[in-house]
């Protein structure tokens, strides 16, 4: 069943000359996690705030759980939408304990039910011991887990996460990402995650939506979006990508693969069927792998970009000027 549905949704802020979000059509199924990625100013946060009810669309319709919440004269305020929101830095109420924060949105429950729900939520985020502490006594990761527990407390129809892992150090980030994902999966929540970190988006999302200048430029299952980007913007959002060399088009990979990831290419010392002859231009030490920049033989180096191949650090030596052949790896 469709949990969230946007039809032709546009948003233009007062005094702006162009839409922050333009004619957006998007759906999220129940229990699905949709990652929304895009550069700064692409409209990610506007989309999230429209769904939350913190902004109203200029045109178009929004439905949550089949109920029209905005557009066409309808308007359901944020407090009545049944949507949870996890803010960038948690936005925990600093004058309340962890317990009071999580219980803030619980209403219409008896004292026992309330306590039981509270204990369940705190146990779920593994922070029962922190119940009586204040937000400033928690670490960044703990605060985000409490923020998620607070957002999930009233059993929302869906939960929105706004850059939930930004401003955390890389180790904590990975740990927290895995934890939040596990919790969301456990309660089978529908989630919309806005992030500028495409690595996070790839790990946690079932489907991805890419925004550029307020427009949806691509959406689909995460793997498809990663491997078959529509254009240079979608391709390079997820890291380096090579444009398909002209000499190869229609020969090796055919239609639908205009962009190739460095890791999808393989360097061979000898020619083989379906390979392209190249010359090593430079190498880059990338930590756990080696970046090799190569030019196909005969291209105009002044006007063409080199191809980037990610090679195993402990593999062959590739001296600058050496002749090699590149081949496309098969994707599992």
């Amino acid at each position, binding site marked *: 069943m469709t949990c969230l549905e946007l039809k032709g949704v546009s948003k233009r802020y007062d005094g702006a000359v162009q839409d922050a979000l333009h004619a957006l059509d998007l759906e999220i199924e129940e229990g699905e996690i949709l990652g929304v990625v895009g550069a700064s100013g692409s409209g990610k946060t506007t989309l999230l705030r429209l769904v*939350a009810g*913190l902004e109203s669309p200029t045109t178009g319709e929004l439905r949550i759980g089949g109920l029209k919440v905005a557009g066409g004269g309808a308007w359901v*305020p*944020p*407090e*009545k939408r049944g*949507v*949870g*929101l996890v*803010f*960038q*830095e*948690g*936005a*925990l*109420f*600093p*004058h309340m304990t962890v317990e009071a924060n999580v219980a*803030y*949105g619980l*209403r219409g429950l008896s004292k026992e039910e309330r306590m039981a729900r509270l204990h369940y939520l705190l146990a779920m985020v593994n922070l029962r011991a922190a119940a009586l502490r*204040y*937000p*400033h006594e928690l670490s960044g990761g703990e605060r985000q887990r409490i923020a998620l527990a*607070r*957002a999930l*407390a*009233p059993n929302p129809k869906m939960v929105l996460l706004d850059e939930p892992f930004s401003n955390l150090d890389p180790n904590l980030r990975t740990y927290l990402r895995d934890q939040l994902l596990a919790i969301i999966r456990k309660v089978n929540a529908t989630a919309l995650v806005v992030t500028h970190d495409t690595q996070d988006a790839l790990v946690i999302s079932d489907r991805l939506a890419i925004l550029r200048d307020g427009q949806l430029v691509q959406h689909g299952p995460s793997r498809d979006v990663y491997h078959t980007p529509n254009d240079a913007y979608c391709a390079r959002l997820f890291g380096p990508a090579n444009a398909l060399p002209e000499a190869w088009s229609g020969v090796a990979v055919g239609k639908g693969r205009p962009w190739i990831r460095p890791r999808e290419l393989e360097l061979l010392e000898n020619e083989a069927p379906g390979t392209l002859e190249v010359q090593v231009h430079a190498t880059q030490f990338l930590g756990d792998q080696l970046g090799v920049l190569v030019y196909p033989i005969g291209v105009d180096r002044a006007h063409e970009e080199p191809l980037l191949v990610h090679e195993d650090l402990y593999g062959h030596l590739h001296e600058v000027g050496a002749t090699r052949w590149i081949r496309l790896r098969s994707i599992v």
Partner: protein
Amino acid sequence: MGIGRAEWRWDRWLIGAGLLCLVVVAPLVAVLFGLGQTGPEWGHVASTLLGDYLKNTAILAIVVSLLALLMALPAAWLVVTHEFPGRRVFEWALVLPLAFPTYVAALAYLQIPEMLIPTLVWVREQFGVDAFMLAQTLLRYGLLSVVLASVLFPYIYLSARTSFAHHNRALIEASQMLGQSGRATFFRIALPLSRPAIIAGLSLVVMEVLNDYGAVNLLGVPTLADGVFRTWFGLEDRVSAIRLAGLVTLIVLVLIGLEYAQRGKRSFADARTEERPIERCRLGRIGGIFAVICCGLPLTAGFLYPAWKLGQWSLLNLRDSVPSHFLPMLGRSLALAASASLMIVSVGFLLAFTARGCQSRSWKGLLRAATLGYAMPGAVVAVGVMMVFGNFDQWLDSNVLLSGTLLAVLFGYLTRFLAVAYQPISAGMDRLCGRLDEASQLLGDRRGRTFGRVILPLMRRPMLAAGMLVFVDVLKELPLTMILRPANFETLATKAFGLAKEGRIHEGALPSLAIVMVGIVVLIPLNRSLRGGGEQA
């Protein structure tokens, strides 16, 4: 040799500034010592008057605080978080009542008890003398409370407005997303988060109530500050007046301590959260009308009504010609305020410059003591100044007496208003000058040269702002001036009060209006700079 931040020691500058602080704080110390004095009349004052003074002061402080909160908080919340007709005007106009000294506002309201005489007579006829007396007392207390709250609420309004505007927008949105209405969000999130700011504003209101002499005197509710006057001039019992002043000083010190202690509890404020300005929500028709009433009522009570009354009476006065005494008195008041500002800003500047980077606890304590005068009632400071000057005169044992000269008035202003000049200058110095004095010293300039070549030119604007604030405060000041002024020396404030006291309220309107006009000229740019300092436009 100059002194860097890292290596402070008690050099000539610091010793000089320390001595200056001691001189400034001397009147307050003298008053506290006065607590130990005993006189034959004290027993009488303590048994018959002190109870009433304390009771009246406490009732007024509580009622005025509640009324001021009621006027300030809804207005501040509405102008920061909602959009409604006239919001932009209300935002700055709600500060205007601060231009009214309490006795000037009281003067504008003095006709109301007269207008209600038929009602009081009716009460007496219907319910008897006791009910009449009760109604009269309630009227006096009620009117005084409304007058004081109407002109003092902007202290709370300003601090609450700034605090609401700086709230993390995400916290308000989080509350909404968790199903809470706007009202619940206000009471459960916005108010608790702003508690320190609101209490800071509230403590200013309470201190102004303690300080007030003019309004309580005009409306006949004797408080402690009024009591100091009555015992000194009415009973001619100096010892009891000094003891009363000492008692007020103690109460103020306790209040300052309480406010300071609650400020320490701000630790829950989450400094790490990103702060975004609050987005205003547009109110519907009914909501808009409610908002206009919430903002319009306090503005009317604290500014529009008294301004209208004063304007009307002044025009009546001016119909024939400007009263002959007015212009010389205006010139005298402005000259006194200007010279006091110049002196106080110079001292404030010197202290702020000397204090830069100094970590010495005794020096900081001394500085805090020297700036305490602002919290003390003018009458108490005046009593202290008279004690210090009286002793000095005795010690000199000559025919030239310092008491009762303009020097005593200026010294009183220095003790009372040093904090008004010191705070903006010190803040400006921290913001503007950074480590420039260290750079100047490393380039070979001695401290005095650094002072003249680097700090002074950079500090012009904060000093001007400080000077304007002191100027208005001196112009409005009443009790201190009344006690310390030379014989027959009238300022706008003393004249306005004197005329009102004689029942010539129409004549008192013109000097009152002059004080208010000068206040407005200073308040508007000041309020703008406050809003520019971080609040959303």
